[in-house]
Structure formats: C-alpha cells, structure tokens
C-alpha cells in the first residue's frame, strides 16, 4: 500500500425505508451534497439490521458503518429503531473487543422530511471516519491474500 494515496473511507449506511432512506431521497430531490463515500443499503426497518450484517460490512472492508432509523416514537413498526439502537450498542462492544473500535459504528435517527439532516450526518460521519483512518481489516485482507 502506498502511503501517498489519499484515504477515502468506505462507509455503509443501513437506512430504514420509511424515514432515513426517504430522507436520503429528500436530500437528492433538494440537490443537497453529501459525500460519495456513503453507500446506502435500504432496509425495511432499522430493526431488521442484525449484528451479523454490521460485522460482515466491516469484515468485507468498510471503514465505518451506521444505522439510520426513524425518530424516537415514530418507527413505522413501533419500536424497530429502539431495537436497532440497542443492537448497535451491542455490536459497538463487539468491535471494541476485537480492537476495531466502537467509534466506527453509529446510530442516527431522522424523519423522512429531514433531507438536510441526512446530508449533515453523512458528512459528519465521513469526517469522523476519515480522521480515524482506514480500518485495519481491508489492508490486512489484501496482505493475507
């Protein structure tokens, strides 16, 4: 790996269909810019995101992952976003256990109309991960291959 290459983080965002994904859509409709580093995976509900989905994202080379769901009390499926928050906290502990770092995973909540918030979260999280640097997993995968 050449150290001269600028680091562009790979970020996976699991976005719930009813709020966060619609907020992303709103951001697009309003022509708001957010970093191209963020790849969105639409899920029916943030509560659908399992620990293994998050871990597999890291295992396959993501530098950061976030789950974005509805605002508190506004989940289309009642409490999926609360479950997602607890699951994210659980996986953060797992990431700490294996030395990847809990700060590479986050949970955000937003409503369908919060296109600006979506863009803001995408920018802020990308900058957080950029500051942290690349996850060790991606380069190690390449070295081990």
């Amino acid at each position, binding site marked *: 790996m050449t150290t001269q290459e600028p680091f562009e983080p790979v970020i996976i965002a699991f976005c719930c269909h009813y709020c966060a994904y619609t907020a992303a859509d709103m951001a697009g409709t309003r022509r708001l810019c957010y970093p191209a580093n963020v790849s969105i995976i639409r899920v029916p509900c943030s509560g659908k995101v399992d*620990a*293994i989905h998050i*871990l597999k994202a890291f*295992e396959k080379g993501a530098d950061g992952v976030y789950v974005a769901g509805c605002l508190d009390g506004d989940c289309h499926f009642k409490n999926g976003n609360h479950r997602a928050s607890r699951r994210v906290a659980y996986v953060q502990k797992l990431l700490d*256990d*294996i*030395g990847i770092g809990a700060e590479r995973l986050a949970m955000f909540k937003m409503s369908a109309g919060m296109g600006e918030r979506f863009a803001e979260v995408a920018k802020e999280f990308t900058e957080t991960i950029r500051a942290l640097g690349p996850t060790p997993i991606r380069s*190690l995968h390449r070295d*081990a291959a």
Partner: protein
Amino acid sequence: MITAERKPIDEIIEYIRPFQKILLVGCNECVTVCSAGGRKEVGILSSMLQMAFLKQGKSIQILEHTLERQCDPEYVEELVSMIDGVDAVLSMACGCGVQELARRYRNKPVFPAVNTKFMGASERQGVWAERCAGCGDCLLGITAGICPIARCSKQLMNGPCGGSTGGKCEISPDVDCAWALIWERLKALNLTDRYEEIIPAKDWRNGRGAGPRKIVREDLAE
C-alpha cells in the same frame, strides 16, 4: 432450558491460536433460545474471529455449521465429512455438546466458546433467570411452584431466613426472597397449611451429592 453466555473473545482466541482451520459448531437448541450459540451467534463469532486474527496478522479459515442438537450422537455424526479437514473444533453448545463432540472425535481438539450457566426461564425478551437446580427430588408440589433450591440464596428448606426484608433477599434488593414468594402464592391459593409442614433435611444424594448422575429407561435403552 440450559443457558449460556459467550466466553470473552480473548479466551477463545487463545484456545484456537495454534490452529489454522477451525470448525465452528453451533447448536439449534437451548443456546439458540438464549442467543448464545445458535446459527446467528456462530456467524457473529466467526466474523469477529476472522477480523481479530487478521488484526494480529494471521488469516484463519473458519467453517461454520450448526447442528440440530449437539448433545445427541445422531446429529454429531453429521460432522464426519467436515472433521478431517480441520485442525480444531470450537463449540458454541453447552458443556454437554462440547463433551459429546470431544467423545465422538477423539483425535480432534475441541474447545468451548461459551460458558454454560444454569437451567433458566425467560423472564422477558433478552432476560433469563435461574429456576431449577436439578436437585433430583422436586419440591415444587409443596412450595407452590416456586423452587427454594434454585431461588433461595441459602437453599433453605423452611424459610424465610432473617435476611428477608420486604420480600427481597439480603444479597440484593433486586432478588426476590423465594420464601416470601412461596408464602404469598400459598396464601393466594388458600394452601397455607402446607407452609406449616416442616420439610425434612433433603437427601442430596439425588442431586450431585452422589457423583455424576445417569437416567436409564430400561424400556427405551438399547
């Protein structure tokens, strides 16, 4: 059911560090229900181990498989085709499953990935509590369906003790006094006369007092 919790990742890593190819085996029974060692947890542990070893500069191979029951020889037999190709086996089943694998595949090191805890029931989603100590001589018929062996900290046969305050045990305000629960339930059932009977000292030979136990059903045994 038998409850378990995943061991700390560092302990698991130390077990399998010398090996290259690992078979990670889950169990579809109790440890699945208590979210400790079913198919999902096998996937999570496998992913964690892959990344933890990569971080340490080592790439390991992990085969994932989850058996219907790891404590039954019939299901354990399923692993025959996989076992030769691996250096070690990591089991996410309770201690029974781990020992069954070790008994069947004698030339293969088998390591536990969970700590087996107790026989428990679900209090609510994600919370399991000890309910049975397997003492071999069930008292629930005279204690209103609440076990003083598993749930009284002192395993008193006639309680409560002086440490019971406001229905809580002296060990913690979060722990119900089993004998207070028994009394309340006997009252509700109009069976308080049972409380008056002195329960004699227990014959612990029915429990672990007589060494490892075995049940043989002559009508079923081959």
